[in-house]
Each structure stands twice: as C-alpha cells, then as structure tokens.
C-alpha cells in the first residue's frame, strides 16, 4: 500500500488551491460575478406585525410582486419588536446584516452614523402625498438628511368595553385624569380593572407614561437641553399614578409586555387599556372566538378614545416606524428601488388597507382616505400622525432622547413609585439618570 505522506497531501491540497485560485482569477478577470450569484437581493427586517394579515399579505403577495417588478430577490424577515435594536447593533458592529431595518421612534437618530440618506425618496413621496407630518419629519430627519424612510405611525388609543362602562354608569369615556381614575375605581370594584403595562417593553409602556407625564406639565428637558424632569408637576403626576394604580389598575401590569394587555383584554379580565388597534382588529378577524360574557361578538363592544387630558393639556406618543437603509449594505441601490416601489401609492395602499387603520401613514394625503369612513370605531386613529408628540420634550427627539427611552427611565420612574418608592424619590432617581444621558 502506498504510504500517504504529509508532503503528498500538502501537494495535493496546493494543486487544488491553485486550481481554485485560477478559477477565482478567472472570475476576477471578467469583472463579473458568477451567474449564480448575479441576482440582486434585498434583506428587509421588520417587526412581527400586530395585524397578522399584513405580514401574510407582504410575504405571500407583495414581495413576489416586487420581485417580479424589480428583478430583485426580496428576503423579508420578521422579529419581535423588542428584538429589533439588538439586531441593528449586531449588524452595524459586524458590518453585515439586513439591508433595510425597521426603526422604532428615534432609533434613526441613535444610528445616524450608520445609515444612508434617503432624502430623495422621502421628499419625492412627501411632495406627491401632500407633505410629511412634522412628527415623522422630526423623528426621521435631522434637518439635513433623512436617516429613515417614514413608514407608519402606530396610534395608541385606549380600547374599552362599552357595555361594562355603561353598566358602571359611565356613558362617555373620561376625558380628564380625575374622571379616568373615578371610572377605573368603579370598574375595578366590579372586578374589571383598567390594564396598563409599566414593564420594559417598547410600545404600550412609554406610549402611556410619556404623554401622561407631559399632560401634567412634566418634561424631560427644556428647550436649551437642561434636565427639568424634577418639577412639582412631575412629582404631582407620580403621586396621582400611585393612587390611580391602587384604585383602578390591574396590578399585573408591572410585568406586562406589549402583548399581555391584548390577551388580558381579549380574555375579559380588564375593561380598558392603552393599545394600538390590534385588540379590536383581532376581534374583527375572529368574531366567533371572541365573545362577550353575554355571547355577543366582542367587536361590537369595543370603542377607542385618546388618553385623557391633564392640567397641561392632552398628549399622545405614538410608535413611529421608519425603514433605515444601512450603510454597510452592499445592495443600497436595489434597496432604494424597493423602497420607491413599496411607497408607490398603489403598493402602499395594499399595506394600508390590510392594516384597517392600525397604522396611520406619515403623509397628509392619507388622512382623508375613505378607509377612515369605513369603520367609525377606527376613526380616532386617523389623526395619530398629525397630533403625536415626540420624545425628548421640549427638546428634539434625538439620540439622547432615544437613550432615555431605551433605558425605560420615565417608565421606571412610575413603576418604582407604584411599587412603593416615595414620589419625590422616584423623580429624583429619574432626574439623576437623565442627567447621565444629557451631560
């Protein structure tokens, strides 16, 4: 038997390497990618939509259409909203990952150095559709470039059970915090509390705590960037929250994420909760599954209302979504083509209609769309993009504001107080944390 010597093996491997090098050189000489790799691809990472019909539509219908129209292979990936930020960080640091990534709120400012300007597309769409709302502009653009292409606003409104409110003698949804607390107290006494998350989760927690604080007159910073959260208004709001929590809220809320309140509402353990329209849309989708205790369809018993007003006014903070084109992407042109395609009116309309009002577009034109007339229950969401107030109030919604949001400082301030920390101390804690960000 011939002995296999290391030298022979090496020689053999060398030959193979040379052969493959020749192949590579050949490819390089022609200046073209081999045929099998020639097709351009765009990898789009977005959240798992709370309206499942939309993801089904995108995957089964719209992406194949885009592929046909553009000759680009589209790779659509969906992840839980709370997992987007880790994926963005991983992508930027490793220099490889999805080409387009959905941004929540001011991620755009946080990752401004790592994205490509999409002004051209944003301005074109804005011009065509009557202008981009200032709320979306402030979040997606730093005044010079657009870090993200505005996609949609997920309006946050309070979904509530009409019949239960009627039974408690409340005919109109409370429009002040005092009457809100009264109503919650009455309903909690009947075993039907309001539900609200104060957990570490992206949507419903800050969607409640920020506008709540603003409505009392509390602010993170003043216009010059000085931290002013430790004010008597904020302390007042925290004290009120402590009482509100005990009187009227489901105490499980401290541990909820963005899906828990949906489940609690649908299983009839809470009577009202701040949410996108996903609860209502789910009951529309499965009328046989979701029934009231009387056996009637639950979707006929749900209404929406904005958060009540406080001494300083009425506010809403709605999740703004945009799509960032990453600087590391090797398919930037293809990704831009795809963005243009999906924002073309006929295509975007399909997305918009599948959402049934869950997502409010960021341009003026859609506000008068006939979709809003179809279902009066969804009508309150129409103005989400127009009336939203961005974080970092009264400063810009920049990277620092986003850092405060990502650290859940404002939400934790209320959570700590609800758990028993004196209001003044909780606010002082938040002030110290904010000062570390706004140095």
């Amino acid at each position, binding site marked *: 038997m011939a002995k296999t010597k290391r030298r022979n093996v090496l020689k053999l491997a060398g030959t193979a390497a040379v052969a493959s090098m020749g192949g590579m050189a050949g490819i390089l000489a022609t200046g073209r990618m081999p045929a099998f790799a020639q097709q351009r691809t765009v990898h789009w990472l977005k959240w798992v939509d709370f309206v499942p019909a939309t993801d089904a539509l995108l995957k089964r219908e719209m992406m194949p259409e885009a592929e046909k129209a553009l000759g680009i292979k589209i790779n659509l990936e969906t992840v839980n909203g*709370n997992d987007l*930020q*880790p994926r*963005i*960080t*991983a992508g*930027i*640091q490793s220099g490889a990952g999805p080409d387009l990534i959905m941004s929540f709120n001011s991620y755009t400012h*946080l*990752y401004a*150095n*790592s994205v490509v300007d999409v002004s051209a597309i944003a301005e074109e769409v804005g011009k065509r559709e009557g202008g981009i709302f200032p709320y979306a502009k402030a979040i997606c653009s730093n005044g010079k470039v657009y870090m993200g292409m505005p996609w949609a606003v997920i309006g946050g409104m309070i979904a509530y059970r009409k019949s239960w409110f009627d039974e408690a003698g409340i005919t109109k949804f409370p429009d002040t915090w005092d009457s809100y607390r009264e109503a919650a107290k009455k309903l909690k006494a009947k075993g039907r509390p309001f539900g609200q998350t*104060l*957990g*570490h*989760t992206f949507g419903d927690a800050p969607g409640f705590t920020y506008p709540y604080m603003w409505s009392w007159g509390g602010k993170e910073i003043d216009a010059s960037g000085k931290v002013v959260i430790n004010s008597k208004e904020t302390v007042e709001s925290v004290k009120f929250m402590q009482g509100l929590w005990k009187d009227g809220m*489901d*105490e*499980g*809320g*401290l*541990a*909820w*994420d963005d899906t*828990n309140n949906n*489940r*609690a509402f649908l*299983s009839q*353990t809470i009577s009202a909760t701040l949410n996108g329209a996903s609860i209502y849309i789910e009951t529309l989708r499965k009328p046989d599954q979701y029934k009231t205790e009387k056996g009637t369809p639950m979707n006929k018993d749900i209404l929406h209302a904005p958060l009540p007003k406080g001494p300083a006014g009425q506010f809403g903070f709605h999740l703004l979504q945009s799509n960032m084109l990453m600087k590391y992407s090797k398919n930037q042109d293809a990704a831009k083509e795809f963005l243009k395609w999906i924002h073309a009116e006929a295509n975007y309309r399909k997305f918009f209609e599948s959402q049934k009002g869950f997502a409010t577009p960021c341009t003026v034109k859609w506000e008068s769309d006939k979709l809003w007339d179809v279902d009066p229950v969804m009508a309150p969401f129409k103005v989400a993009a127009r009336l939203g107030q961005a974080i970092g109030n009264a400063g810009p919604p920049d990277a620092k504001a986003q*850092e405060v949001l*990502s*650290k*859940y400082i404002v939400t*934790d301030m209320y*959570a*700590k107080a609800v*758990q028993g920390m004196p209001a003044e101390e909780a606010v002082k*804690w938040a002030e*110290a*944390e904010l000062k*570390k960000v706004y140095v």
Partner: protein
Amino acid sequence: MAVTSLPAAEGKRLSPRLRKLEDERWLALALLTPTAVLLGLFIAYPFFEGVMLSLSSTRVGQPGEFVGLKNFHKIWNDSIFRTTVWNTFWYTGVTTVFKLALGLWLAILLNRHFRGKAIIRAFILLPFIIPTVLSTFAWKWMFDPTFSVINWTLFQLGFITTRINWLGDADLAMTSIIIINIWRGVPFFAITLLAGLQTISPELHEAAAIDGARPWQRFWHVTWPLLMPVTLVVVLFSVIQTFADFQLVYVMTGGGPANATHLFATYAYQLGIGTGLLAEGAAISLAMFPFLFIIVVVQLLYIRRVETR
C-alpha cells in the same frame, strides 16, 4: 506517538524535523499549540477586545477613543448597576444553596436500588436537557400575571383570594426567577453528586454501621467528607454559570419590573446592545470578572487543601 514511532519501527532514519519532536519540550509545544491557538482566538482575544472596549468611548457605529477608567467610574455611580450587583449576588447565593441541598438529597435517593432506576435517572435530567429559552417560556406562562396556572390552582384550592403578582412585584419576580433557576440546576447537581456517591465504597458504610454509626452519622462522617471534592467542583461550575446567567432573566422579565431582576449580563446587554453604549456595556460585563475571579481562586485553593489533606 504513532506518527513518530512508525518510521522508526521500519528502521529508517528520522527526518531532522521529526527528530526534534523526540525532545519532550518540542513535543509538548507541538501538542499544546492547537489548544493554545483555540483558546487565544476564542477566549483571550475577545477578552482583550472587551477590556479595550471598556476603556474607550465606543458607541454603536462610532469608534470611540481611549478614556481610561471613565466608564467604570460611571457605572460605579450608577444606581441600576448597584441594584444589579446586589441582585446577582442574591440570585447566585440563594440558588446555589438550594441547588446543592436539593441536588444532594436527590442524589442520595437515586443512589438507592429501586425498580425503574435508569428511567427515573434519565427523567431527572429533563430540566437540564431542555433548551433554557424553551423551558423558561413555559415558566413564563405559569407565572403570567393573568393566566398563571399556579394562581389558578392556589385559587381553586382556596389558598388565595386575589391573584399573586408573580412577575410584577419586585421581590416576587426575583423569587420567581430563583425558583426557575433552581428547577433547572438541581439535575446537574444531582447527577454529578450521584456519580460522586457511587465512587464511595459501600464497605466504608458497612464498617461504620458495624461500629454503631447511625444513618445521619454515616452521612456526616463518611459520605460528606468523601463527597467534598466533587461537591466543590460542582458548586464552582454552578456559581460561575449562575453569576453570568442571561437567558432566563431575559426571557422572563427583561430585567424588570423597574430593574428589580437585572443581572450583570442582562444589564450589560440592555446598555451595550439595546441602547448602543458598547463601552459601558463592556465595562459592566468586565465588572463581573473580579468577583468571579475571587470566588474561583478561593474555591480552587480550598479544593487543593481538601485534596492534599
């Protein structure tokens, strides 16, 4: 070694390079190199990078500059970090005590002869075998604020009248994750200690019994001292793993409510990956190192003392 001895057996002269390997120092070097390269590449290099990162001002997408110990100074004054340190020690301490006690108890039970021993032993390992994320999700449902099956059972049995807010209350949330960690960790203790028990010669027990030792005395004076080296190694492993735990807390609470369950790893993740403050995240991760280092050194010294006794 086969490679070196084969040509020699055929009576040929060794090539000079191979002859070098006959010198033990060169052979040792050659044999150690692959391990050293692997360790260097996957442990030393990332560790070094982590140290450098923690001494810089790097943020996501922004290569920073050297800032010395500024990040450590910052986290030292960070109230959430202090909570995290306390949480981690409490979590590790409580779980280790319970895991050791329950694991030892289980191991002694399993060391007896009974029918279906093999099957029971295999089942005992289940919590350890199931991927943590998967089993933690099941626990998440059991502790769910609204749908908790534990609450339902207690309610039906008449023990409680209102829901227990497992994950929403700061102390209960910590208790919940401690329970899950114990559930997950006991099999590891049990099986390893069982292996230790089986090395103890039954004759020693018989001899002790003949001398009139009661079961408790036999355990305390025969089993426990002989089991000590194994126990220490298991505890050492467990402490390291628990101290750096991530998945369980991340899935159950994400560090909430109001940071009541943050551990080193989850807080480092929230700051570094979530918020993009890579340098601060690295500093928090590294802050684990001195604590763990002290624990490991103390335990290893103790093990050596036990072994040389």
